[in-house]
């Protein structure tokens, strides 16, 4: 049962991820990415971590992708074809992705497939994650919040009118 569900949703995740890359329409791409994220959330449920699954859907599928979609719609890209790429761009793109793919497969074979995972129970409920976050990882946690604050201030600075402009 678990096995069947895993392969079903793994297939869904991969197929929709491929649609994201291959489809010409950016809106379809964004929506496929949502579907792919949702299938990933099912993986977390199978790992008995419903908390992580819910967070995956809330943060990625629910919040971030809505913003992406929002921007795509505002830019109104729906009928615009992609401009033709130059040969050098194509060459660089293919080389980089091939290198990345080979590296990924190498590490998967080396560490994931032939290494047996430890058989310890997996705790990923809200309590455990919260305690870990505020005890062991409190410094990186606070650093991330400062990073986000800097990003917000930067975005406000770039988008907002300066004080002088607003007055005139």
């Amino acid at each position, binding site marked *: 049962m678990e096995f069947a569900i895993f392969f079903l949703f793994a297939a869904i995740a991969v197929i929709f991820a491929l649609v994201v890359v291959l489809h010409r329409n950016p809106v379809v791409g964004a929506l496929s990415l949502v579907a792919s994220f949702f299938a990933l959330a099912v993986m977390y449920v199978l790992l008995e971590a419903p908390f992580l699954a*819910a967070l995956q859907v809330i943060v990625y599928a629910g919040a971030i992708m*809505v913003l992406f979609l929002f921007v795509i719609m505002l830019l109104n890209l729906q009928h615009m074809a992609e401009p033709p790429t130059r040969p050098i761009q194509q060459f660089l793109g293919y080389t980089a992705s091939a290198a990345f793919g080979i590296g990924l497969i190498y590490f998967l074979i080396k560490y994931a497939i032939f290494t047996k995972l430890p058989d310890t129970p997996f705790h990923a409920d809200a309590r455990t994650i919260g305690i870990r976050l505020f005890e062991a990882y409190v410094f990186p946690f606070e650093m991330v919040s400062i990073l986000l604050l800097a990003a917000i201030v930067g975005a406000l600075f770039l988008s907002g009118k300066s004080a002088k402009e607003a007055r005139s």
Partner: protein
Amino acid sequence: MATAFDTTDVVLSILKIAIILGIWLNVTPIMVWVERRGSALIQDRPGPNRVGPFGLLQSFADALKFILKEDIVPAQAHKWLYNLAPTIGLLPALTTIAVVPWGRGFEIPEMTLFGRKLFEGGRWFEPVVADVSAGILVIFALASLSVYGITMAGWSSSNKYSLFGAIRASAQMISYELALTLAAVSVLLAAGSLRLTDVVNQQANHYFVLFDVIKLPAWNIVSPAMWLSFLVFSVSAFAETNRLPFDFAEAEAELVAGYHTEYSSMKFALFFMAEYMAMATMSALITTLYLGGWDIPWYNEPATFLGFLLSFLAFLAKMSLLLFVFVWVRWTIPRLKYDILMRIGWKVFLPLAFLNIVIVAAFIAARWI
């Protein structure tokens, strides 16, 4: 998950799903009737009164009309997304209710039928479809997907008004989801758990005793620490369900009908159903978080079938009351301006929700909760 396959468990699960789905699918026709009669009452006119007694069968006539109408797909529409959108819109509305408890759990007595034992005695029936530890987060996760149905519908219709409706809906839902979630955090802090059964158990059959005389049920709405949170949550619930005074996604006066302008026939009816089911889910959630869930005040429900039945009815009664408030507000308060909506969301409700978290934390530190 690794446990053995239990047939009785599966049957019970299917039974629970059937009960709750049955109620949720019937919410729409009933609520349409309540809305039309309610609006008529408020506006001092008769309302639908031809089909059946008090126009009760009007919803059936409406449903029949929807089924018989021609299903039109605009020539410019993105066919795939256009056809998929109503289903995607309905999906979160139907699934979110799975984690909300709707009655007192009880022990199933041993039952025999034709000399065969149906149930092993002593099995516990918990009236919630999926009592997961992530609880309320599942609701927020699925509810955050409901914006996609609207966005897909608006974009794929290739209609400017539809697109405006969809963009407004996404902006509005992103803004109010934050306030909604943060308001709920206060309740979860008090309950010490994300699980909604824990949230109800913390309120049910407990009492606040004032001056050793007055005994008040320990519902969250009674506690002064929760008043702000209740206010923020319920107002944000209106914004989340796109109801007047926040129905900018389909503001008739400005956008024809917003994101579902191009839809007809059953596809339009599905959007309609999704809206009412989302309302029902929000009412159920407010009931669970603030109104003590299935708890009957000053009455200790026994853990028997009778106790379950009474608590289930109490839950439905509270939910219906809130659903009526949704209708009442719609026909009383006019639509706000869009910039006011966004300003209130970010500059008023969000800070208020944060403030309430601090208040609740202080109450917990002082051991008042």
